[in-house]
């Protein structure tokens, strides 16, 4: 059946060079590359908005841009970063590339749907971008009603349409992954032998599939209310604004786990490989992914503690928010314990993984501040929130993405990146990151509200520090862009398994052949069976 004839040198990359061979491909690896280009583009677009915002915030009296422009900037920054960068980032790039290989399959269950999901993504992004350039959007990424439905003068309807469309790309990706993991595993690959990355993406996919449709219909309702004046969300025409918030957060809280779970999966792989040990408490870590995905649906009301939501509902959401933190804690502790008595090889991916653990822990623990209703009353809608989620999303998820890109770069491209530069930029990012966002915790506790275009002068010092940090951060993101591109031609040839990793994707060539494996692998043991100690290190 499979083509044993696949000769040395034929791989998914050199299997056709025409545009058509890329844009009509159904090869999950090529689709992953298409996604990679798209989301990196959006990252820099979103990052540029952030840079403009930070520049504006250097002085208390807005000087650089108009208030309207500033409002559009943070809206577009939030939308682009969340919907067009972070949500698709690890799933659509690394997940697409790796899941079939990690389960020993030739492709995903629905290769054509996979390609469709990319086109849908591009279509949705284009419509949204169209809205952004032809007038912009100033509602904040949360689109709160009735501002968005009745008061904003910007391009709400097209933006909603764009996000509606994009949602389906997320749904298709999740659906594909779930069916693939259920039905396409190689012989012998039982659930508890799966790599933890697969577990966490499985959990992510559940969230994508079950939460995204609600966002889609909600933004559709916003668009309809705006276009036709029907009364669903605006109290002046018979609606209820909190209904919108419930529907929105029913999606958007679980969505934060769409963003973090894949990064957690990457970290599990990286920690195992670079300490040459199975992740400690494998079953607990795997189960924690599912627990996060499921509990994640029960806590959305913690975004509404001061919204006028019933105080009793608030009570329920508060305690459930504490429960959802526990599986994350389990993961952090198990990763740490994995290092114990390991053989730690300090390569860039591990450096990023350490960054992830530290920054995610800070971000997560500050989430506990916000889940405490009494404290949230003071903190909500201040820069403390901004700091909280950037610690998790930039410090956590983006660091996880960087860890993953570096870890699998040799697999994807067949080349190694320059280690020195990589470590250097990881350090720059770490420093720049903390300088950008730590001051925001202080600003938040001091009471500086978010989405403020100008602010009282006593907040200036901390804001200037934050802006300084952001420019370091910007440089930190440019360096990898340069050396990774450089490595495509000049990097050392990697070989099939440069890290001595044990999961299936490392058993095939780098870059992988089109059908992934010459013959379907047969699995006889868990994913992390490293050679016994003695072989590597005689005692």
């Amino acid at each position, binding site marked *: 059946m499979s083509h044993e004839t696949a000769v040395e040198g034929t791989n998914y990359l050199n299997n056709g060079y025409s545009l058509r061979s890329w844009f009509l491909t159904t090869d999950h690896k090529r689709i992953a590359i298409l996604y990679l280009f798209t989301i990196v583009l959006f990252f820099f677009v979103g990052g540029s908005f952030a840079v403009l915002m930070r520049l504006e915030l250097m002085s208390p009296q807005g000087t650089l841009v108009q208030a309207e422009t500033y409002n559009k900037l943070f809206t577009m920054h939030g939308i682009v970063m969340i919907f067009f960068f972070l949500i698709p980032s690890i799933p659509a790039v690394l997940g697409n590339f790796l899941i079939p290989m990690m389960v020993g399959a030739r492709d995903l269950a629905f290769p054509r749907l996979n390609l469709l999901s990319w086109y849908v993504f591009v279509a949705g992004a284009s419509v949204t971008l169209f809205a952004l350039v032809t007038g912009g959007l100033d509602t904040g990424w949360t689109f709160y009603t009735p501002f968005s439905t009745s008061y904003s003068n910007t391009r709400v309807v097209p933006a909603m349409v764009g996000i509606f469309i994009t949602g389906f790309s997320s749904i298709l990706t999740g659906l594909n992954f779930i069916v693939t993991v259920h039905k396409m595993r190689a012989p012998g690959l039982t659930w508890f032998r799966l790599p933890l990355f697969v577990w966490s993406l499985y959990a992510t996919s559940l969230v994508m599939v*079950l939460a995204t449709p*609600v966002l889609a219909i909600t933004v559709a309702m916003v668009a309809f209310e705006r276009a036709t004046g029907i009364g669903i969300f605006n109290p002046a025409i018979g609606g209820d604004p909190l209904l919108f918030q419930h529907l929105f957060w*029913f999606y958007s809280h679980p969505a934060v786990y769409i963003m973090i779970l894949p990064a957690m999966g990457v970290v599990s792989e990286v920690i195992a490989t670079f300490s040459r040990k199975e992740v400690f408490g494998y079953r607990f870590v795997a189960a924690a992914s599912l627990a996060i995905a499921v509990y994640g649906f*029960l806590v959305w*009301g913690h975004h509404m503690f001061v919204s006028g939501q019933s*105080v009793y509902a608030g009570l*329920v959401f508060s305690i459930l928010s504490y429960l959802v933190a526990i599986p994350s804690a389990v993961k952090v502790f198990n990763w740490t314990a994995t290092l114990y008595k390991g053989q730690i090889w300090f390569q860039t991916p591990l450096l990023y993984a350490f960054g992830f653990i530290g920054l995610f822990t800070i971000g997560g623990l500050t989430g506990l501040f916000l889940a405490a209703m009494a404290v949230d009353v003071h903190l909500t809608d201040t820069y403390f929130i901004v700091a909280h989620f950037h610690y998790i999303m930039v410090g956590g998820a983006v660091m996880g993405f960087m860890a993953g890109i570096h870890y699998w770069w040799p697999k994807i491209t067949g080349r190694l990146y320059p280690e020195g530069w990589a470590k250097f930029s990881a350090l720059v990012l770490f420093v720049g990151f903390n300088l950008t966002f730590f001051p925001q915790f202080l600003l938040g506790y001091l009471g500086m509200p978010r989405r403020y275009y100008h602010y009282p002068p006593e907040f200036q010092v901390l804001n200037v520090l934050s802006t300084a940090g952001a420019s370091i951060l910007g440089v930190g993101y440019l360096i990898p862009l340069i050396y990774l591109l450089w490595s495509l031609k000049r990097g050392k040839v990697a070989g099939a398994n440069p890290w001595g990793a044990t999961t299936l994707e490392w058993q095939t060539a780098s870059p992988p052949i089109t059908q992934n494996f010459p013959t379907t692998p047969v699995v006889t043991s868990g994913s992390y069976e490293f050679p016994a100690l003695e072989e590597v290190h005689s005692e």
Partner: protein
Amino acid sequence: MQGLPSEHIVPLKVYFTVASALFVLLALTVGVSLIDLGPFNIVVALVIAVAKMLLVVLFFMHVRWSSRLVWLFASGGILWLAILFALTMSDFLTR
């Protein structure tokens, strides 16, 4: 191979029985709506709707003869919908 659950051929009689049951339930739900049961009208209407749904799902959609995974996926969507309803109403009902 008859072993595959999906390959189950359902006897015609089953389909026609189910269809008749559906029509009876339809008549019933319209009929009951003409009687004033106070707050129970909506309850009865929903019970009948759920019964109709189960008939369609189990027989027309073959879930009765399908794999566990199909059961899981079919009930999963409904369970999550219940979460959406329950926690949203937990706010509105206790304000």
